């Protein structure tokens, strides 16, 4: 399916998807037990569990593509920050409930059209994972967009808060659509997708939801983050230090 030179790209492409899911699941996991209402503890846990499940499948697959015997845990727990290829949006701190749901909405609105296209990837493994992910992503988007609408069109306070969340998070959405060599090579090979087309869908969803939420679309600004190339801000290192603590403290132990 892929030429020799593409196999590195292929692995990195899968790893990007895996890491974005894993990192966002880890963030959502911080909420469980501390949400504004019991239903939201359950809702955030649902999304977190789905994303974690997808991350595990994708990591296992990325490990197989790499062919060096690394399993999901070796990839999750024994890679350094610079080797993580998640989008920077996923690693942004939880902030308040509005920040978390705005982050989730911007992410879900991207992941759904991405998975819809990946479901017909020429890579059958990836296509199968994406096809399963489509159903989950659609549900996540319903949950997150529902909250963006309620917060946007709720009280003056909630409106102001969630508008601020969107402004802060907006710059991190740019890399989602900024195709680089890996994205282009995968698209040419029929494995990846046209990110421009994903963007059209994303813009449509975002416009519709923000209109219903009476929120304004933030302006595009220059951005500095390429999480998918391993260039991260200051947050990911702390997250990994916490997530990987036991594996690092007990090398080789089985759990």
């Amino acid at each position, binding site marked *: 399916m892929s030429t020799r030179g593409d196999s590195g790209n292929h692995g990195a492409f899968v790893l990007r998807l895996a890491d974005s899911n*894993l990192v966002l699941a*880890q963030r959502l*996991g*911080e909420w*469980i*037990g*501390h*949400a*504004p*209402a*019991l*239903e*939201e*503890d*359950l809702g955030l*846990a*649902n999304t*977190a*569990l789905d994303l*974690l*499940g997808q*991350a*595990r499948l994708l*990591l296992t697959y990325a490990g197989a593509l790499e062919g060096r015997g690394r399993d*999901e*845990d070796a990839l*999750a*727990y024994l890679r350094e920050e610079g080797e993580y290829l998640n989008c920077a949006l996923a690693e942004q701190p939880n902030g*308040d*409930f*509005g920040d978390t749901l705005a982050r989730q909405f911007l992410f879900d609105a991207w992941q759904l059209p991405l998975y819809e296209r990946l479901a017909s990837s020429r890579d059958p493994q990836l296509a199968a994972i994406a096809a399963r992910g489509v159903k989950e992503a659609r549900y996540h988007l319903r949950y997150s967009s529902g909250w963006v*609408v*309620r*917060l946007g*069109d*709720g*009280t003056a*306070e*909630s409106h102001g*808060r969630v508008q601020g969340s969107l402004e802060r998070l907006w710059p991190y959405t740019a890399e989602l659509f900024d195709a680089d060599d890996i994205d282009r090579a995968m698209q040419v090979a029929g494995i990846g997708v046209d990110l421009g087309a994903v963007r059209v869908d994303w813009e449509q969803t975002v416009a519709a939801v923000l209109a219903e939420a009476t929120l304004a679309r933030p302006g595009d600004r220059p951005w500095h983050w390429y999480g998918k190339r391993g260039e991260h801000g200051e947050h990911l290192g702390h*997250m990994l230090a*916490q*997530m990987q*603590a*036991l*594996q690092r403290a*007990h090398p080789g*132990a*089985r*759990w």
Partner: protein
Amino acid sequence: MDTAALEERFQARIDADERIEPKDWMPDGYRRALIRQMAQHAHSEIVGMLPEGNWITRAPTLKRKAILMAKVQDEGGHGAYLYGATETLGVTRAALIEELLAGSAKYSSIFNYPTPTWADIGAIGWLVDGAAIMNQIPLCRCSYGPYARAMVRICKEESFHQRQGYDIMLALARGTEAQRRMAQGALDRWWWPALMMFGPPDAESKHSAQSMRWKVKRFTNDELRERFIEFTVPQAEYLGLSIPQGTIDWNEFHEVLRGNGPCNRERLEARRRAHQNGGWVREAALAYAEKHRSGYREAVQ
């Protein structure tokens, strides 16, 4: 019919093992006792999310992380389900939660102990969910229908949790020296508090006799405690861990109950913080629902 006759008929139904349903007549004392017990149970599920939630971000493998997240989510679901069942007795979940946050409602003292190591997550599943099952299986035949039905559903998930907790302990017991020490440390920490979960000795138990008559309770505290010990000791032997020697320190039990356990303050503060920080979110949801009730749009346009 006068109250004495109603009460007699009520007791006759209980004696005949009939289920009492929300619309049936019931003595005030029965209603109050059930509200107290069911609310306490619901609160325990919610507060119980905290000590285990403490390890979600640090679970040592992705599989363990997924299992733990699902478990903590289950406990939240149990809480929601039990609050719902309690509401059939004429109270609201919001009022019950207010009582919890005000510090005037009780929850299981076990969750006032800390989880300093990963092994504590194993020990909680194995011992705490294990003890909860011992307590709760008889409740599946409790005389109050909604509670009994809730317990059937909950017990299935708790036994899952118990097995998963034991599996964590097994991996640790078969692991490195440091992991075995971690497992033994957690057993040492959780053994006595787990035994206290069955409540004070029968001789001191305030509510027992009436609860037995009403079939809200079917075995005494000491009976259930003994059964738990019989069940658990061989499991510890299989792990190669040793059960702590000694006797229950009832003084500790009463102190934790009085609010002087290691984490009482942290647990309540965490619940209060979540509630306070979520205030603007709940207000927004209410305001939104209010605005979008049919007719509002037309009215303001």
